[in-house]
């Protein structure tokens, strides 16, 4: 009796470890076959679906509500077509470039082109308790949403063909390498950078790509002189809700299992979103005299974007501070934009670019779970994180610039003034949003 009981206890002990990511890795190292855990698999499939929901309908409507009604469909289309397109790009070669067997720390090999060798067994390299294909599709969603985020900066004026070409090039030349460097075993990961769910890979890269887009494409006709109020804020709030909802998959899914680490990321995400929403609201209240609904929505997204790299590494109170900083500083960044004079139409730079930087740096400051940041005594991490932010920013900005030039020379970037007057919906798609 006692012996069998202790055996059971021992087993349980082991079982716990199985539940925890690190052990399965250990086991994999011993050469055993990793096994699928149904709970982890369920969670990552759900998380993948959640991230899809962040894009379509989430981001599509968030952006769609912010533009003028003559551009509502064209704006939604950006996210929709990017989602379809990057899915195929990722399956064909994007995944292999990002996560395939490493070549010199720089890029993944083409071994997994067309998902060859990406089967329903766990991968030996990533997420040892879920099917490799599920890991692949979870990463696919990240690849797609990153490109979609950028579209907010050139809303209401990009040629549709240009959008297609830009998206494919950007995904292959900016996203896949970056994902490889940070998550696929590349050189940055070897330096020990921390990016839990994509503060650098997703938000800094899209945010500063967006800045370059806004500068290269130029202002919208009438920007700064005529009011361009959002045509449907309830739609934007709907998008906000779906983004928040989906972000649980984005961040807590990045634990790659339904374990304690996922729980840490889940609550950090939720708390930062709330703190971000409130702090933006208060900042605008103080600055402009009224709390606004678009303000709280923007603050929520700022909080979510900012906590992304830190989610799995910080406790609830740190998350609250990070979220509060996010809402305030992103608000300041967005207000400054008007002074700098570029037309980042839906504030991708101010929210994702600035938020991503704050998040990456904050990870170096506040990390206390599974890593140690400056405030807990490890100055080294802070330096590494600042370096990560700068490298990502520079790589994305320069790469985006080159890609835009290529697109401009080939198909042209911007629609004609007359088409802009008419709106994307009629000029690019022969459709109207509302009849």
């Amino acid at each position, binding site marked *: 009796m006692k012996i069998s009981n202790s055996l059971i206890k021992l087993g349980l002990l082991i079982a716990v470890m199985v539940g925890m990511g690190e052990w399965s890795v250990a086991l994999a190292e011993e050469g055993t076959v990793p096994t699928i855990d149904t709970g982890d698999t369920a969670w990552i499939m759900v998380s993948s679906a959640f991230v899809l929901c962040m894009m379509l309908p989430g981001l599509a409507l968030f952006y769609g509500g912010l533009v003028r009604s003559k551009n509502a469909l064209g704006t939604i289309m950006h996210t929709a077509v990017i989602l379809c397109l990057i899915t195929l790009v990722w399956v064909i070669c994007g995944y292999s470039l990002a996560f395939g067997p490493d070549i010199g720390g720089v890029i993944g090999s083409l071994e997994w082109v067309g998902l060859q060798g990406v089967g329903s067994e766990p991968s030996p390299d990533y997420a040892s308790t879920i099917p490799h294909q599920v890991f692949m599709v979870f990463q696919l969603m990240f690849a797609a949403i990153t490109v979609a985020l950028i579209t907010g900066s050139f809303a209401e004026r990009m040629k549709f063909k240009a959008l297609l070409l830009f998206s494919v090039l950007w995904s292959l030349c900016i996203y896949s390498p970056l994902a490889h460097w940070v998550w696929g075993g590349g050189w940055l990961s070897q330096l020990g950078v921390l990016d839990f769910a994509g503060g650098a890979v997703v938000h800094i890269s899209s945010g500063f790509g967006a800045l370059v887009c806004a500068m290269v494409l130029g202002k919208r006709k009438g920007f700064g002189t005529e*009011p361009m109020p959002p045509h449907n804020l309830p739609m934007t709030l709907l998008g906000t809700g779906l983004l928040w909802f989906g972000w649980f998959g984005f961040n807590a899914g990045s634990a790659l299992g339904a374990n304690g680490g996922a729980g840490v990321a889940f609550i950090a995400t939720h708390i930062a979103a709330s703190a971000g929403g409130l702090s933006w609201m208060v900042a*605008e209240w103080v600055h402009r005299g009224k709390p606004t609904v678009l303000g709280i929505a*923007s603050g929520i997204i700022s909080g979510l974007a900012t906590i992304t790299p830190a989610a799995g590494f910080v406790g609830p109170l740190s998350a609250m501070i990070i979220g509060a900083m996010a809402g305030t500083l992103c608000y300041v960044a967005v207000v400054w934009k*008007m002074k700098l004079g570029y037309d980042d139409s839906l504030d991708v730079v101010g929210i994702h670019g600035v938020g991503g930087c704050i998040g990456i740096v904050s990870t170096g400051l506040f990390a206390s779970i599974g890593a140690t940041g400056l405030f807990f005594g490890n100055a080294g991490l802070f330096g590494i994180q600042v370096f990560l932010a700068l490298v990502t920013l520079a790589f994305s900005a320069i790469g985006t610039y080159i890609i835009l030039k290529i697109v401009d020379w080939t198909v042209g970037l911007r629609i004609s003034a007359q088409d802009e007057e008419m709106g994307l919906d009629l000029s690019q798609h022969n459709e109207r949003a509302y009849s």
Partner: protein
Amino acid sequence: MKLIQAIIKPFKLDEVKEALIELGIHGMTVTEVKGFGRQKGHKETYRGTEYQIEFVPKIKLDIAVEDKRVTEALEAITRAAKTGSIGDGKIFVTELQSVIRIRTGESGEGAV
């Protein structure tokens, strides 16, 4: 016959309608319009950027009335639509050369 075009504050529509019905005027046509005038509009703020919106929502009423009832109609509208604050609106009167009721084809005062 006259055509009265009254531009009023939207929330006064019901009162004006009642006032006209009391006079026995049972027909009118309503259009949602935006007005620009002495009444200043309002401020809107989106992500810290303030817009001054100068156009104010108004209701335009088109009412065809027989000549003899014009005065009382104008009085009724003025009374019902008045709040005393800026932006109460205007009434314009034009001459109608003819009026036709489509259903019957009849024209003139009987058509109203």
